[in-house]
């Protein structure tokens, strides 16, 4: 009964949509024919989708409705742990309660999926994708390293990830108006950078007569550690702070156990002592950028393109002459310009098929739908004709979407696009609402060879996992403790280094590196 009624409803909407499309004389709507239909009879699948903005899946998303019409598959919300905003917690709750919905997705599912998949909680997708999901398979064929990256220790992979697009995320930003006022150029190398920061400290660029400028600041104190790249060291290997990285000869190591780190950190400690780095870097927290920029105190930072450029418009009236510009990473002591941060091509988010799913073939076909052109546009831009139009073969947001008071991403979340399903992001989505300053910065960065390879993580087997779990949390704690002590000057890195390395060894550093590398070789050396 209900199914029938729903079908009727669908038909009615379908005709209505066609009429609208026809009258506005647009290209034929993508779902005007049945070529994307997966099932003849409507099929209902339950889904757990826990993600930061909404702890659940809204069955009334316009995108969901459009996908229903195109594929015939309905998603019904069955999200666990809605009262928590922690997606890991929700996932554990879901697994512990035993009764799993057909599709399990959301934020940070990679680790649980790779751990419990081999135990039988999720279906391996390799064969399903190879047989029934040509578009996903085509993506893997073009990006084999990403398929390797999500593969669990048993050689199977268990989820379809959210695949971000675009390259640069964070960039160096400087108060161009302060530079101009002090008659300085954008710093091109470490020494010039030091001079600029000293000038910001001493030259009173904000003109209030007080020495209250904060030359280098950051919302996240970890960005200070990233300054080690100026001395050819590394602070992380991925878009997560303090992560492992892969050396040129293909070995996984941790940046904080390398000799280069010692030299670089001693310089950072000097800069901190000289007052070039925000003295309150560790406690100022996420409001640092807001506060220091709007109070006309902060001079330089390393942060995301889009949101940082946004301050030019936001502070135009408040701070006279405010001009916060992205500039190229200064060359390191050996002359290398490196932007250590980049968008990861692969997120730990996405969706998987639970072992209780009775329609795995239909489900994988449904996953594949989101990798077709129609599905990809739907997941990136929303429903065609509602939020965007196809103009000269390009999906272009409607002016009312771009000029709304609400950010475009928020509008997308509200219609069910850009949410944490397994989909491939289209950078054209973000580019359209990136402001002019940031676009220029991105072009500047893209014109130079700045990126370093990303460490996409490894999947441990049970034995490796237990070694890692046993030693890593304590090692990590110890490394960060010493790191802060060195910056704050309560320890001297040159004097402490040997005992630091000895302590790391005593605490199991070499065991962790061993399991890291055995997992890495299994996963990536084919």
């Amino acid at each position, binding site marked *: 009964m209900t199914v029938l009624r729903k079908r009727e409803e669908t038909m009615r909407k379908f005709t209505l949509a066609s009429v609208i499309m026809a009258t506005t004389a647009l290209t034929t709507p993508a779902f005007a024919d049945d070529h994307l239909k997966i099932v003849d009879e409507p099929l209902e699948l339950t889904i757990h989708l826990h993600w930061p903005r909404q702890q659940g899946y809204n069955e009334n998303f316009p995108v969901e409705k459009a996908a229903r019409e195109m594929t015939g598959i309905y998603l019904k919300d069955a999200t666990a742990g809605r009262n928590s905003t922690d997606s890991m917690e929700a996932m*554990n709750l879901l697994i512990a309660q035993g009764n799993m919905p057909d599709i399990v997705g959301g934020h940070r599912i990679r680790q649980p999926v790779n*751990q419990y998949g081999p*135990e039988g909680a999720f279906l391996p997708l390799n064969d399903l994708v190879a047989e029934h999901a040509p578009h996903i398979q085509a993506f893997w064929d073009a990006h084999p390293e990403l398929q390797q990256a999500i593969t669990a220790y048993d050689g199977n992979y268990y989820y379809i990830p959210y695949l971000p697009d675009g390259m640069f995320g964070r960039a160096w930003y400087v108060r161009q108006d302060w530079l101009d006022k002090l008659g300085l150029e954008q710093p091109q190398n470490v020494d010039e950078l030091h001079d600029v920061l000293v000038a910001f400290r001493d030259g009173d660029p904000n003109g209030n007569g007080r020495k209250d400028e904060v030359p280098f600041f950051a919302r996240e104190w970890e960005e200070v550690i990233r300054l080690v790249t100026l001395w050819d060291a590394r602070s992380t290997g991925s878009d997560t702070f303090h992560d492992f990285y892969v050396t040129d000869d293909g070995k996984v190591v941790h940046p904080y156990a390398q000799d280069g780190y010692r030299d670089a950190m001693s310089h950072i400690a000097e800069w901190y002592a000289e007052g070039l780095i925000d*003295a309150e870097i560790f406690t100022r927290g996420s409001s640092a950028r807001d506060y220091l920029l709007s109070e006309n105190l902060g001079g330089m930072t390393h942060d995301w393109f889009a949101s940082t450029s946004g301050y030019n418009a936001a502070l135009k009236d408040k701070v006279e002459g405010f001009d916060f510009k992205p500039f190229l990473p200064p060359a390191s002591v050996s002359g290398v310009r490196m932007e250590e941060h980049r968008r990861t091509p692969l997120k730990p988010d996405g969706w998987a098929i639970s072992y209780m799913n009775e329609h795995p073939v239909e489900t994988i076909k449904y996953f594949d739908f989101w990798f077709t052109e129609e599905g990809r546009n739907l997941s990136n831009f929303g429903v065609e004709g509602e939020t965007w139009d196809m103009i000269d073969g390009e999906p272009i947001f409607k002016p009312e979407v771009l000029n709304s008071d609400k950010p475009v991403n928020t509008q997308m979340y509200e219609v069910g696009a850009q949410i944490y399903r397994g989909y491939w992001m289209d950078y054209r989505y973000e580019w359209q609402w990136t402001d002019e300053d940031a676009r220029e910065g991105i072009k500047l960065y893209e014109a130079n060879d700045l990126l370093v390879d990303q460490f996409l993580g490894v999947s441990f087997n049970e034995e490796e996992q237990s070694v890692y*779990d046993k030693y890593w949390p304590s090692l990590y*704690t110890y490394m*960060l403790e010493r790191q802060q002590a060195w910056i704050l000057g*309560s320890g001297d890195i040159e004097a402490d280094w040997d005992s630091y390395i000895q302590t790391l060894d005593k*605490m199991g550093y070499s065991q962790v590196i061993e399991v890291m590398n055995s997992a890495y070789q299994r996963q990536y050396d084919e």
Partner: protein
Amino acid sequence: MTMTDNKIGGSTEELVVEAGEAQRNRRPSRMNRVGDHLRREWQLYLLLLPTILWLLIFLYKPMYGLQIAFKDYSVFRGVAGSPWVGLEHFYTLFENDQFIRALRNTIYISLLGLVFGFPMPIILALMFNEVVNQLFKKTAQTIVYLPHFISSVIIAGIVITAFSPSAGIVNTVMGWFGLNPIYFLTKAEWFRPIFVGTGIWQEAGFQSIVYLAAIAGISPTLYESAVVDGATRFQMMWKITLPMILPTIIIMLIIRIGNMLEVSFEMIILLYQPATYETADVVNTFIYRQGIQGGQYDLAAAAGLFNAFVAFVLVMTANTISKRYSRTSLW
């Protein structure tokens, strides 16, 4: 009962057997008595029921899950399906210097909190009791109760701002006396005073309510006769008020010792830094980092179980000592 039996020893064996027989004979009537009692007092038991249910559901049922401290726990396999590993997690903990440090810090911070934090509400209550001006008293009470109702996140924000080296009030005042600013929250040696002080500021006022209530219960005749005898106010406080609220103080002390290791770890998480782990990392924050963030529920359960065990020993000891020396005890 058993004590007396033992004292009398074997000589009264017959009596005991007889008593047992008598009891067996009385059993039906005893059952009846229980039934009668329940029929008469059922309203009271009904009132008790929600609390008992709450205890069973939220405190006793979860104890089933404690076994994961001895298991290699997998969420998917479940509590029952995960294999036993014996005391492995406890070995792992005690081999870990950071756990030992966290344990030491927990005890140290708790003791500091006890020594400085426990007398505060009592002193406050005594002082409020002596205030004559009602308007001043009410205003002062409201002000000291207030921090209790503010969320820890905001309290932590206030503390961080107050101790900020550039804009904080503490460093500003120090500046007037020509002292150099100190970045307090990254200095391990300052963490404990700041944390314990924050705790006192947040809770002392609210905790004084219990003592105020106890003071209100003291019979005014005691004070009247003391006035007649020419006692000073200080003497009355020292000789009447304090001794009269001593049982309350002892009970509160035992409860406090029982909760001693439950350092308000959310506040620590908000205030600590890797730079201050040395003095700030407590068992609960260690559990949080190692267990919850790292996903090692079994190890976290082992650490939590050990913490609870120490707390249990502490409260039993405190209770026994108190029973022996002051005749006041929880049970």
